[in-house]
C-alpha cells in the first residue's frame, strides 16, 4: 500500500483556487521532489498533507489515516509526519536540545533520559554534536535548519516533508543541509521535497513532479523530466532555471 494517496485535491482562498485537482501516490521509501514556478501551489500542497492547510475538496490518505475523516486524530497523524520549514521555525526560547526533546517528552513517547540520548545521536547525524546547549539565535541559518531536521526526526516519523528547506540559506550553507537530506534518503526515508535545487532533485529523487497553475503538469524519473521534458510549460521552466 502506498504511503501517501492524494485524490482530486482542491484548495481555494476565497475566489482564488490554488490547487485545482491534484492526484499523487507516493510509495514507501520513495523520494519525490516537487519543482515548479513560484505560486504554482507546491507549498500549499505540502501543507495540506499534514493538515496545516485544510483542503476545500478531495481526499488525502497517509499511512492508512484518512485526513478528511472527522474521526481521525490529527495529532496522531502528525506524529508520523516530520515537517521542515523554509524559515526553520526553531523555538527561540529553548536550547537546541530542548527544541529536539520537547515533543517526544511532552507526548510521552520517551522518557527525558531516552529523549536526551536520542537527541545527542541525531545531533551527531546532522553534524552539530557540540551545539546541544546553544540557543537557536546563536546558530547560522544552515545550522538552524539542520537542528530543525533533527527535531522532526526525533518523533521517528515515517514520512518527511521538506518545504523549500534551503531557500532562506546563504549559498555556502546549502550543501550541509542537502548532505543531511541525502543521508536520510539513502537510509530509506520516505520524503516529499519542495525545492528549487535542481541538482539535488536530479541526484536524489526517485521521481520528480512538475507543478504549475495548481496542477501536476508532468512527472517521471529525474532523467526523463530534466532531459526529455514533454510539456512546453516544463521546457520553458527548465530553460529559465538552468540558464540563469
Amino acid at each position, binding site marked *: 500500500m502506498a504511503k501517501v494517496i492524494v485524490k482530486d485535491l482542491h484548495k481555494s482562498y476565497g475566489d482564488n483556487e490554488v490547487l485545482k485537482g491534484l492526484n499523487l501516490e507516493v510509495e514507501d521509501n520513495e523520494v519525490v521532489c516537487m519543482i515548479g514556478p513560484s505560486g504554482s501551489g507546491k507549498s500549499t500542497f505540502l501543507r495540506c498533507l499534514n493538515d496545516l492547510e485544510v483542503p476545500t475538496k478531495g481526499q488525502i490518505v497517509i499511512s492508512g489515516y484518512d485526513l478528511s475523516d472527522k474521526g481521525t486524530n490529527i495529532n496522531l497523524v502528525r506524529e508520523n509526519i516530520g515537517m521542515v*520549514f523554509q524559515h526553520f*521555525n526553531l*523555538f527561540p*526560547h529553548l536550547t537546541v536540545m530542548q527544541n529536539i526533546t*520537547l515533543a517526544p517528552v*511532552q*507526548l510521552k513517547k520517551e522518557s527525558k533520559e531516552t529523549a536526551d540520548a536520542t537527541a545527542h545521536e541525531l545531533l551527531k547525524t546532522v553534524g552539530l554534536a557540540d551545539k546541544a546547549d546553544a540557543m537557536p539565535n546563536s546558530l547560522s541559518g544552515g545550522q538552524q535548519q539542520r537542528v530543525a531536521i533533527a*527535531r522532526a526526526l526525533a518523533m521517528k516519523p515515517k514520512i518527511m516533508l521538506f518545504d523549500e528547506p534551503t531557500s532562506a540559506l546563504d549559498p555556502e550553507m546549502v550543501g550541509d543541509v542537502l548532505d543531511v537530506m541525502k543521508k536520510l534518503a539513502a537510509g530509506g526515508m520516505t520524503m516529499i521535497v519542495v525545492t528549487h535545487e535542481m541538482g539535488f532533485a536530479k541526484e536524489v529523487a526517485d521521481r520528480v513532479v512538475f507543478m504549475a497553475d495548481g496542477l501536476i503538469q508532468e512527472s517521471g524519473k529525474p532523467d526523463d523530466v530534466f532531459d526529455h521534458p514533454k510539456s512546453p510549460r516544463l521546457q520553458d521552466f527548465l530553460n529559465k532555471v538552468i540558464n540563469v
Partner: protein
Amino acid sequence: MKKWQVAVVMVLATLGSWFAFASTAQAKTYTIATDTTFAPFEFQAKGGKYKGIDIDILNAIAKKENIKYKLKAISFGAAVQQLSANQVDGVIAGMNVTPERKQTFDFSDAYYTSGVVMAVAKGSSVKSFKDLKGKTVALKTGTAGATYAKSIESKYGFKIKYFNDSNNMYNDVKVGNSAACFEDYPVMSYGIKNGIALKIVSKQYEAGDYGFAVKKGKNAELLKKFNAGLKAIKADGQYKKIVDKYLHSSESSLTGETASSRTFVGLFTQNLSTIGSGLWMTLELTVISIILATIMGMILGVLGVMPGKLGPAISSTIIYIFRGMPLMVLAFFIYIGFPDLIGHGFKIPAFIAGMITLMLNEGAYTGAFVKGGFQAVDDGQMEAARSLGLPYWTAMRKVIMPQGIRIMIPSFINQFIITLKDTSILSVIGIVELTQTGTLIIARNFEGFKIWLMIAIIYLVIITLLTWLSNWVQRRMN
C-alpha cells in the same frame, strides 16, 4: 485538576463566601452613613476616628435608645445614593430637609437649624451678591448652599462650579479661581476658625433644618427611636453640650493636634498611623487587583487568539465594554447600581466592589496586550509545534506563551503601575485608601499643600520600588 485550575476555583470560592458573609453580618446592626469632610458635623480626628456634632448626637441617641449601628464615612453624594439604593439604613450628614428629598427619604425631627452664608477670600473685594456678576462661584454638590446659590444664579449673573468636597471648594476660592463659595454657617465658621483663609461676607439665608434620613417607607422603627432619643438628649442637656463643644472651641482640642507641629515632618509623624492604614489599603487593593486582573487578562488573551470565532468574539466584547468604561462609572455601577438591580437588600462591601472594579478594568487592558503579545509570536511557531504532533493547548503552553509573555513584560509593568494609581479613584465609593486619607487629613487641618506633597512622594516611592522589582524580574527572565 491542574494547579492553576485549583487556584481559580479557590479565588472564586473566597469571593463567594465574602458575599455571603457580607450580607448576613450587616443585617444585625444598622449601617449609618455619614460624610467624610463636613466639620464640625463630621470629620476625621487624629488617629482615624470620626468626630463631630452628627457623630456625637448619633452616639448619644444610640446609647439612650439602645440602637446598635456601624458608622460608614463616605462622601456626601455617595451616602445619599447608597441610602436610596438601600445599601445603608440611614444617613446623618448635615443633610438639609428639602421637599425633593422628602420624596425619596423619611426625615427625623430637625436636630439642628442652619443658614447658608457666602464666603470669599480674605483679601477679596467681593462684598455682596451684586459683586459676583460674571464671576465663578464654587459650590459643593447636594448642599443647601448649592441649592440657594443656584436659585439666585441668574439674578446676579454668576457662573457655577461644583465640587465634591468642601476643602477643594474652599481652596478654589482661596487661590482665586472662584470668587466666592456658599456654605452652611456652622461649617464655614468652624473652618475659618481653624485656619481657612476665607471670610464670611453675608448674613444667613434660607435657614434650613438638618435631619436624619432613612429610605422612604423603610426603617420606621429606627426613625422613631432617633426622634425619641433626640427629645431625651435635648431634655437632659447633652445636646447643648455637644453643640457647644464643637462651635465654641478651637480645633486643636478636638483633633488632638498641636498647632506647633505644622511642619512637614511634624505633620507626617502626627498622621503616620492614618497614612499608614491608607497606604496599606492601597497596597492591598493593588496586589489583589493585579493578581485578579492578570488572571482575567490571560484568560481574555488566550480566548482572543483561539481558533474559531466564539473565543475571539467573547474576548473582544469583554475588552470593549470594560476598557471603554471610565473606572469611576464602573465603580459606581458595581457598588451602587448593581445591588439596586438585584434588589432583596443585596449588598457588596466597598472593598469587594473596588476589587471587582479594578479587576474588570485592568483585566480588560491586560487582556488586550496579552492578546497582542500572543499574536506577535510568529505563526510559524505554532505550525512547527503542531507539525510535531503537539496538541493545541500544549503548543500554546510550551511554545507560544513563554515567547508571548516575554514580549508582554514591559506592558505588565506599565499596567501594574497604572493599577496602583487607579486605586485612588476608588475613594469615590468610600474606600479609605492613600488618596482618601489625604483628603481626610486635610479636612481636619487644612494643610493642603504639605499633605498632598506627602501623598505624592509616597506614591512615587512605591512606584519606584515596583519598577525596580519588575526590572529585576525582567532581568531574571532573560
